[in-house]
């Protein structure tokens, strides 16, 4: 059943995030040039990494959905992309704050990673409008999966193209590994990535549980009200009673 292990998972997430941020704040040394503002990379970069992985994960679930026609994979793909979008907003905002703090501008076109991220984010922003504009729920699920597979494959291709376009104008300002970070910084950084990934998984599980509860509620109402109850169009996946696993 969905939602059974949410409490321990949530607790673990809270402690992981607190621990990772504590490492970032006190254990990792202050950056020589940028001072405290550099600490935002412990939030911004993990958010961005988790967002992109979430999009690709949504694409992988979409492949499974196309292969099996099992609506549960569509739900997983939808939820993965939806949560990644929310993380993506956070990554964009923290990225802009960081650009403002270190370069004095809110947006920096020469920062290839940021630009690539924006393009990917804009592409995935059409996911819900696409779903919403298709009425037949089965076709909606299938088309959304085709989109998710294509957009998921686009993530690495886009990063390659944008990076190439910029390579000769502007050397990479920041590298997330190697010479850019000291050993202590790396430890704190990877702890933050891991905690953020756990946070993503928790949010994903929460939304899955929420959607499942809603399906079951609908199924019950349909049993009471007969087959005649109609529901409005929705961008979220719909499932039928027969698709749901038996309650345990």
């Amino acid at each position, binding site marked *: 059943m969905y939602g059974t292990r949410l409490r321990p998972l949530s607790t673990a997430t809270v402690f992981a995030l607190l621990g990772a941020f504590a490492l970032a704040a006190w254990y990792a040394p202050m950056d020589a040039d940028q001072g405290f503002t550099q600490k935002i990379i412990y939030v911004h970069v993990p958010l961005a990494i988790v967002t992109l992985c979430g999009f690709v994960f949504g694409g992988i679930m979409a492949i499974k959905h196309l292969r099996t026609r099992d609506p549960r994979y569509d739900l997983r793909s939808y939820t993965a992309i939806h949560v990644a979008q929310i993380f993506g907003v956070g990554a964009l905002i923290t990225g802009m704050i960081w650009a403002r703090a270190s370069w004095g501008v809110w947006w920096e076109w020469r920062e290839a990673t940021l630009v690539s991220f924006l393009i990917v984010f804009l592409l995935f922003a059409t996911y819900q409008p696409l779903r919403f504009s298709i009425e*037949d*729920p*089965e076709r909606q699920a299938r088309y959304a999966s085709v989109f998710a597979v294509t957009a998921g494959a686009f993530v690495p291709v886009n990063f390659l193209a944008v990076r190439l376009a910029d390579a000769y104008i502007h050397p990479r300002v920041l590298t997330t590994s190697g010479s850019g970070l000291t050993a202590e910084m790396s430890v704190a950084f990877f702890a933050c990535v891991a905690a953020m990934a756990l946070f993503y998984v928790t949010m994903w599980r929460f939304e899955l549980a929420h959607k499942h509860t809603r399906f079951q509620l*609908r199924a019950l109402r*349909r049993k009471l009200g007969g*087959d005649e109850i*109609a*529901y409005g169009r929705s961008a979220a996946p*719909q499932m*039928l009673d*027969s698709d749901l696993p038996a309650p345990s």
Partner: protein
Amino acid sequence: MGPEDADPALVLDGLVRRFGERTVLHDVTLTLGRGRTLVVFGPNGAGKSTLLRVLATLLRPHRGRVRILGQDLPDQAWAVRGRIGLLTHEPLLYRDLSARENLRFHARLHGVPAARVEELLEAVAMRLRADDPVHTYSRGMVQRIAVCRAVLHDPEVLLLDEPRANLDPAASELLEPLIGRASGRTRIITSHDPAGGLAEGDLALGLKRGKQALLRPVGDVSVAEIGALYR
């Protein structure tokens, strides 16, 4: 039990098709022998067109067994696709192309020689207008070309959605050898006309809100019973 019953053209067992959370076809179960005709009655929205689209392999069944010409749908749809002809309210013709161009396009898709196109144009008395664009035709003429399209590849099973809706009696007679009983094909016909429909078929199926309300040989069905489906 005739020999055709051993290898029926169509077997449906508990066919279910849904549209989202709405069930459009509930547990439809029947068997139809080769060369026989099934007439499907029912008010608008009863699921008649959906049934035809499932049988034409355009929609997948959600549950139950569908066996047509000895092949199970949807897994073996590829094996029956070239052996079924579908005639719906939409003629499936490009309006800016002529009848001849449309039929030649379909002939190429089905691997049928171009001579068959000429033969059919002759049969439906459309030879003189065959090079005019389809959008200049009357509805009856469009229907005649649509019939040609449906039987172009000489299908063993014909799925006909109110085939005589736009036809005058003369045109209806013209099409008889192609889609009538004389064609010798297994036919599934939807109809709103109780008397005419019963005269055409061997087996009558009544659908009401997607449920199978009636299934009997036409001899045992009265016109009044069909009329009751619509109430």
